[in-house]
């Protein structure tokens, strides 16, 4: 590791640095867990969700589309952990596969809202003047509509389907991100290091990319984690209203609507388990978002 001249070669140096980083990561993780046990628990739940989504085929006991006329409305049992629905489909397996849809909606919709919202917010704050005015009036207009109403309107234009739902959910969250990013950008623009960057000859795109965006990233991350829950709930709501994920996709919202309402007295598990799944997912994302904010927000960092 150490050469005869007493120097450490570059590869070994990298290994040492990595080991040092890892040794710092673990205490940080422990600290995070100690300071935010709920956040840690939420992270664990989210990790489980991701594992379930990736390994849905492994963890499920039945195919989510498989109809079994002899097993309609079967109560929860060792054969069907969460019972079966009106078509004899295994509710447990559908919830496991539904995790994929929820995470897919969450990740992509949040990605859309974060990317578009950040661009709109940063450009709006940086450009100022009429650009800011026009963009903010558009944001105001979007804010004027309740989230689900706006999503319904967008889906009615785009048509039903999982991609349309993702797009709609992504768009309805853009204003919130844009407004937060704009506010953060305005405060960052007033910082001396921005002026310094200009003095050093940096062009606007470099200033935005290298100096502004990294400094507004913390609130964006918090918004993103909070947005996951909102996105999952919005997808479930749209599916519940019959304009979301089309059958036979096992969306949690779809599972809650339709036949579940019709048979809730006879087969309550058809509504209970998807409802619990939605609750846990949204709760976990919200707690995780809170914990992340506590960690990343300098105003809250260190406070109790």
């Amino acid at each position, binding site marked *: 590791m150490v050469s005869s001249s007493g120097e450490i070669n570059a590869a070994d140096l990298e290994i040492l640095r990595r080991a040092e980083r890892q040794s710092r990561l673990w205490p940080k993780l422990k600290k995070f867990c*100690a*300071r935010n*046990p*709920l956040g840690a628990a939420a992270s664990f739940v989210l990790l489980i969700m991701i594992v379930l989504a990736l390994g849905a085929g492994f963890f499920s006991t039945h195919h989510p*589309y*498989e*109809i079994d*006329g*002899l097993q*309609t*409305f*079967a109560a929860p049992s060792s054969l069907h952990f969460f019972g079966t629905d*009106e*078509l*004899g489909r295994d509710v447990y397996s559908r919830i496991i596969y539904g995790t994929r849809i929820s995470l897919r909606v969450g990740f992509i919709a949040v990605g859309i809202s974060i990317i578009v919202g950040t661009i709109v917010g940063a450009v709006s704050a940086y450009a100022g003047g009429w650009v800011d005015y026009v963009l903010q009036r558009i944001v105001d207009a979007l804010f004027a509509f309740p989230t689900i109403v706006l999503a319904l309107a967008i889906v009615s234009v785009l048509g*039903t389907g999982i991609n349309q739902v993702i797009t709609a959910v992504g768009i309805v969250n853009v204003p919130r991100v844009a407004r937060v990013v704009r506010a953060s950008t305005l405060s960052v623009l007033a910082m001396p290091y921005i002026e310094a960057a200009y003095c050093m000859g940096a062009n606007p795109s470099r200033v935005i990319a290298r100096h502004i965006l990294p400094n507004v990233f913390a609130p964006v991350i918090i918004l993103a984690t909070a947005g996951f*829950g909102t996105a999952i*709930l919005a997808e*479930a*709501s749209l599916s*519940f*209203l*019959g304009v979301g994920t*089309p*059958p*036979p996709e096992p969306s949690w*919202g779809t599972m*809650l*609507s*339709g*036949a*579940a*309402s*019709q*048979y*809730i*007295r*006879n*087969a309550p598990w058809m*509504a*209970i388990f*998807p*409802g*619990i799944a*939605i*609750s846990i997912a*949204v*709760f976990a994302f*919200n*707690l995780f978002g*809170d914990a992340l904010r506590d960690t990343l927000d300098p105003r809250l960092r260190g406070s*109790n």
Partner: protein
Amino acid sequence: MEKSYWMRNRVARRRFLRGAGVIGTGAIGAALIGCGSDDEESTSSAPAAPAAAPAAAPAAATAAPAAATQSSIAQGGAAQLQSSTATAVPQPAENVKRGGHLRFEISGDPPNYDMHANSTYRVNVPLSPVHALLVEFDPLSAVEGPDNVQGQLAQSWTVDNNLKVTFDLHSNAKFHNGEPVTSKDVKATFERIANKDGSIVSPRQKNYDAVESIETPDDTHVVVNLNRPAPSLFAMMAQGWNTIYSHKDIANGMDFKKEINGAGPMKLDKYERGNRFEMSANPDYFIEGRPYLAKQTVYVIPDGSTRFASFQGGETDIFLMATQADAESMMDIMKDKAVLDGPMPSNGFGSINFNTSREPWNDNRVRTAVAMAMNRDEAIAVLSKGVGYHGGYFNPNGIWSAGLDAVQKVPGYKPYSDALVAEARKLLDAAGVPDGFDATILTRQGSTYENFSLYILDNAKAIGLNFTPDVQETASAYDRLNTRNFDLAPWRHGYAVDDPDALFGEFYVTGAARNYSELSSSEVDDLFLKQSTELDVPTRQELAKKMEIAALDLYGKIVTDWSAARMVRRSYVKNVVKHPNLYNANRFETAWLDL
């Protein structure tokens, strides 16, 4: 010393509220299901109790009118058109209590008011009390057939040589706008339904092919001239759809989709879309002393749970759209406070329509293969929730059916087996699509239709066909169906009269309004004409059976299952009889409440 986590992290109000809100999501989600939609075309397709024994009609059903039993399908009736003598309107029993307010529900708004141009119960059920019929099926008997036809606006009729029928009308009937009901109105009504000028979409226009002309010698006599004997004429005319419109309204171009002017026992006071129909008794109703009720309210309640709760909570008196599960649960709760009528075989069935203008649906072998791939036991289990029946094109419990044995000799209707699926694959191979193909299933929004599509999708996989549901809102789905913009269109149908003329005239002969596959054959058309003019019932039955088998073999429409009908009512609701469909006996003019 560092404080514990719980001491450090006192839950802020905002966080608590957020947490509580999120926790409540599940409960809210479950509660939200009360807003779900239910899009069934009729209760005849309504499912039954989970894992319930199909034949296990609750004991309370014994309290239902005796007619609400299997005997309801013992129809068919008279060989020839028979004259009727004028009979006095039956006087009410002494214990009738007048002035009640009857409340029940339907599951969705009607597309419009026009009875002649619609086929959904959402029009028929709420608006029938506003209208009068020329003749009707006895509302107090669940048996519907020519033998049970009685006059309504017609007080009697005479039949000459099976080619001429003269109706004698009540002279004191008035429309709600005060105009008298005359023979001209009857003539204009049936001419509008027959739709010779193509002015409306008339689903039942083929029912009146035998009508050559209608004459009105005076205001109270209508003469119907036939171009051939038509043994089912009265049954056709007695359908609840044939409400009498004013000839002046028709001539003046009244928009029947938006306006209403009937001669029935109730006047429509108010209709709030998505909410309710409110009706009050017509003081000028031509039958003295009727209706017994002072008011009727028909609520529009899309959600099944809300319908259940409404009845249980006393907000409705009749639970019209009860599924078998609802009915049994309700009877468990209500005990002797409610009466379950049914389940009874209904005139409702599930079917798959093909767009034969598109390949490969124009190939009979492909359609046959799809028919073979359908596991009909599973259809009854999952679509009719165990309370359903196997059958072909005629009601399997009626007198016109070729019988299950004969139906199951048709290749696509053989009992499901692996061998049959293998045979279906061979047919696809022979049709040049050995590896299957992709197609879309037009799917009307709502769990009934979505589940129907999923059932088809699941069964079609067995022969390598990959179907994708194309979910459309109800109006859009109807539009796509009527404009033939689909590959496959699963649909649940109901019809008013189990009669070859009514059924085949509506669904299977050339040019039938609801022949969505547009497939027919000269053999079927010839048999249709022959049976339609045959006065001897056994001979007509034989012709109908041949016609059914010939039509089944075309696979223009594949029948998956026949369903059951039922109704729960409060025990104080008197003089209401459940019929095997939702299209007849909906005026409730003799109903009364024993409160």
